[in-house]
């Protein structure tokens, strides 16, 4: 098995789409045959389990594993849709002080033996939870909305990655990718919204992808389906393209036919409505 890769999904600012992006990217990596685990680092305010649709299956969590109250295999929740996808939920009842570097390191090292991708969903802010989520990362997906406060906070988190990550402390660098979410091409065109190029230029980070503002994102989160595993929609294709880029693969050809729009309706997929 090739070397495991640890990727943090981070942003500084809250509500920009870190958890949605973690679920989308993790599920897509797994769908393409890579054994993937998504970890919720938001201790006390977990939500990745809800977005992944496994909230009723949480028994043990990340903190239980750190404190040796459960084994890793007991805490990992196997996705029911993708056989290569696993979720490590955060604890809902403890606080972030439960995350100590030594304990987190132990869990990450164990996961590295089993998984090809370890995706760390960072909490907002630059406190302990966020620092622990990014500390072990080799690559970072910086989730940014084309909006002033989000761009500023992304710049701040890039600074933290450059100074406080393990790689930075070893004199190396975390590979950073910019993922612009909730983008509205028409508004950017009219000059009402920062353009992709504006954001990329300010942050000076390579662009991984642009996810359009889409009603499909809410529909997927309502149902606990990672957007990349949901019925066809614009955000799903944008995330799939971003994952291709992350893997260094050519972009997938979007198959669409004249009945393309009908695929969005459950009844035409033979699913219960």
């Amino acid at each position, binding site marked *: 098995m090739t070397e495991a890769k640890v990727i943090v999904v981070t942003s500084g600012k809250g509500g920009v789409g870190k958890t949605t992006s973690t679920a989308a990217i993790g599920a897509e990596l797994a769908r393409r045959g890579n054994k993937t685990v998504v970890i919720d680092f938001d201790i006390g305010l977990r939500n990745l389990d*809800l977005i992944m649709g496994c*909230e*009723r*299956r949480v*028994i*043990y969590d990340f903190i*239980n594993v750190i404190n040796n*109250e*459960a084994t890793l*295999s*007991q805490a990992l929740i*196997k996705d029911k849709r993708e056989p290569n996808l696993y979720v490590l939920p955060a604890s*809902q*009842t403890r606080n972030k002080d439960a995350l100590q570097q030594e304990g987190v390191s132990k869990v990450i090292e164990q996961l590295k033996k089993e998984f090809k991708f370890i995706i760390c969903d960072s909490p907002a802010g630059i406190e302990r939870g966020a620092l622990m989520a990014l500390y072990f990362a080799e690559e970072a997906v910086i989730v940014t909305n084309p909006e002033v406060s989000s761009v500023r906070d992304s710049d701040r988190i890039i600074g933290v990655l450059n100074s406080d990550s393990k790689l930075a402390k070893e004199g190396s660098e975390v590979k950073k990718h910019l993922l612009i979410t909730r983008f509205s091409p028409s508004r950017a065109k009219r000059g009402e919204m920062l353009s992709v190029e504006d954001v990329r230029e300010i942050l000076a980070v390579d662009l991984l992808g642009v996810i359009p503002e889409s*009603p499909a994102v*809410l*529909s997927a*989160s*309502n*149902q*606990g389906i990672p957007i990349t595993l949901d019925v066809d929609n614009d955000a799903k294709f944008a995330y799939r393209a971003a994952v291709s880029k992350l893997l260094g693969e050519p972009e997938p050809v979007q198959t669409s036919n004249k009945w393309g729009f*009908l695929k*969005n*309706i*459950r*009844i035409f997929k033979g699913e219960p*409505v």
Partner: protein
Amino acid sequence: MSILDLIRFRQKNSASAAKERLQIVVSHQRAGITSNKPDFLPQLHKELLAVVSKYTDIATENIQVQLQNEGDFSILELNITIPSS
């Protein structure tokens, strides 16, 4: 029923799915906070597993433990699946 109605129906459907899921999660969450005692479910799960394992070959995921709050009482739901063979 027009296609537009179907789309609307699906959207309504996803919102009601969200509401149902949230009601369960939130009731569980409140139960944990108001009782202000350590979450005993992991320990309960561990002990159940130990007991059932004495009699039959069973894995962690075959035992599901859920606590739901329903107003002034709670429902402890145990699901133990015993694999055939």
